[in-house]
């Protein structure tokens, strides 16, 4: 946590505030206003994208708690989202559980599953853990497509639209409020979690697990807690995917999903809530923008349309590689740089420049 030059806190409340400075509050209010006005001016297409971004943000924050804050690599994001989606969907469909309760149950079930798959992390580190979670992903994927009696196999499961306060969440406009509130709540929870004893323990385990255990952090417990907390939100994201489209298909939860979410937090910035959102937005919007670009040049270059999926794939890879090489701390760091530049503009000195 860096202290800002020229900011003197005179009360504990302001010292402990998440957004103590006036400029920060102004930015927050601007963002809130934008979020409030956006659905009234945006086209349905953009609303749909916004909902996807909001859901992806929840998932990315969940993954970031595990990978960015605690340093445990997981390739099983898709599997955990599947567990969340299928639990929520099947509870609502087969047992008539109200959707809110089934979403909450889905989060808990996913958290339990995450803890279970986190057990290898007690013995395995780094790449071995990555490979173990890869195996978990493949096994859950197989279960999803082959355990036909429960999941319906490769058939899609169709759900009823959720109803909140008498409003059916069957349009993107209605769902938007639910998605934004969830994403905002998740972000607030995660930001505060990192300021607690548990959050600091996560970071200690990430930075040096032996040192962490020396200063009294129970490393095993902390790791499992990280898996559980992370999976809770990942399951929430999965359940929201299910209720957004009111349909569950296994294709949404494959290894590529895991990779897409890892890309979000890499591109956005590991260990950053803002980064989770920025990364989720970029990685969600990028393919959509490439599609739009392709449609725009369709008349001049008709063969472009058939190349679109490949262009999306290649650009996705290039974005990951470029960020890793040139800005490993992601969009979050770029945003920080921009802020710092204007912080003392027109003077050239930048905070942290001496550190390189």
């Amino acid at each position: 946590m860096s202290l800002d030059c020229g900011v003197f806190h005179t009360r504990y409340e302001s010292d402990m505030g998440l957004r103590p400075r006036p400029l920060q509050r102004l930015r927050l209010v601007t963002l809130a206003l934008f979020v409030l006005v956006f659905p009234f001016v945006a086209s349905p297409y953009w609303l749909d994208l916004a909902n996807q971004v909001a859901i992806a943000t929840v998932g990315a924050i969940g993954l970031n708690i595990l990978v960015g804050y605690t340093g445990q690599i997981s390739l099983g994001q898709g599997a955990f989202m599947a567990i969340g989606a299928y639990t929520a969907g099947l509870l609502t469909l087969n047992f008539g559980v109200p959707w809110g309760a089934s979403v909450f149950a889905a989060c808990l079930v996913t958290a339990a599953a995450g803890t279970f798959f986190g057990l290898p992390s007690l013995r395995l580190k780094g790449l071995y853990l990555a490979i173990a979670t890869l195996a978990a992903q493949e096994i859950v994927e197989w279960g999803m497509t082959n355990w036909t009696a429960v999941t319906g196999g490769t058939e899609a499961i169709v759900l009823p639209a959720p109803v909140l306060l008498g409003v059916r969440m069957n349009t993107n406009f209605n769902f938007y409020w639910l998605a934004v509130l969830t994403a905002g709540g998740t972000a607030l929870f995660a930001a505060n979690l990192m300021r607690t004893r548990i959050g600091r323990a996560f970071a200690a385990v990430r930075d040096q697990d032996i040192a962490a255990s020396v200063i009294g952090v129970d490393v095993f417990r902390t790791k499992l807690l990280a898996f559980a907390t992370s999976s809770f939100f990942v399951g929430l994201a999965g359940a929201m995917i299910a209720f957004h489209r009111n349909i569950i298909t296994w294709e949404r939860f494959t290894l590529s999903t895991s990779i897409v979410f890892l890309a979000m937090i890499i591109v956005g910035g590991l260990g950053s809530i803002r980064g989770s959102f920025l990364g989720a937005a970029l990685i969600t919007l990028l393919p959509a923008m490439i599609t739009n670009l392709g449609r725009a040049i369709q008349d001049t270059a008709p063969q472009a349309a058939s190349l679109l999926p490949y262009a999306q794939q290649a650009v996705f890879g290039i974005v990951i590689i470029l960020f890793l090489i040139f800005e490993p701390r992601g969009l979050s760091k770029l945003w920080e740089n921009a802020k710092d530049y204007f912080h003392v503009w027109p003077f050239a000195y930048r905070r942290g420049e001496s550190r390189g």
Partner: protein
Amino acid sequence: MDIFLQLTVSGLSTGMIYALAAAGFVVIYKASDVINFAQGDLLLLGTYLIFFGVAQVGLPWSLGVAVTLLLAVVVALAVERLVLRPLVGEPIISMIMVTIGLSSVLRGITGAIWGPNPRSFDSFLPAGDLVLGPATLSTARVLSIPIALAVLAGLGLFFRHTRDGIAMRAIADDQQAALSMGISIPRVFGVAWGLAAVSAAIGGMMLAGIVGVSPNVASIGLRVFPVVILGGLDSIAGAVIGGAVIGLLEVYVGFYVGHGLNLVVPYVVLVLVLMVRPYGLFGKEIIERV
């Protein structure tokens, strides 16, 4: 019994292609500690390059193979120089993600050039069947086993007897000490990627002959993980044994058990190995444990 023999040959030939891919993976891991998620895409590249050279340009077989190997090496060297080298010393997550990004780029490029549909292709491995007692075996599959074994033996000899091979083992053993003995790490990394590309390209060319040319070839990249974990992350011999075991297991389970279990059983094995013996059958018994 003849069914069993056919299954065994089929499993072994698949297994040897897994072994070729895995050997490339092992070489890269040994030299530079990079987990290469793009190994399947190097295979895919080999498959499409031989298809391009022989079927589309019309080169004779020998020349086509040579050009494929050459281009694969060029691509691998470029990748090592431009993508991997700037990231030396970065955390594991960066290494994993950069090869995943690479895999995505390679798949996008090959897809854009050759499209999503499988292509038909006359293999350089002779077509037709080999009748061996009661069993009828595909000649291409039977032949692929000795070819793969020869390549893998060559890799093993390379590690044991050549200057670069020994340098690579030295770096795998202790990077600092190797550096101080005057071993050029960039050169060794380059050689490692070149070798991985050659081994994957040979696997890819044989796949072109056995299962045909299609984007699905890249899925073998993920099969590499059970193979290398079973055999040991840093052992060529382990890759051969691991490849054979996983290949056989897949066909046996696929035939005798069914239910698509053959797709998941390698990963179950992977989890079991990680629990019992995380360094694999032949790996060095040094593993980062908590």
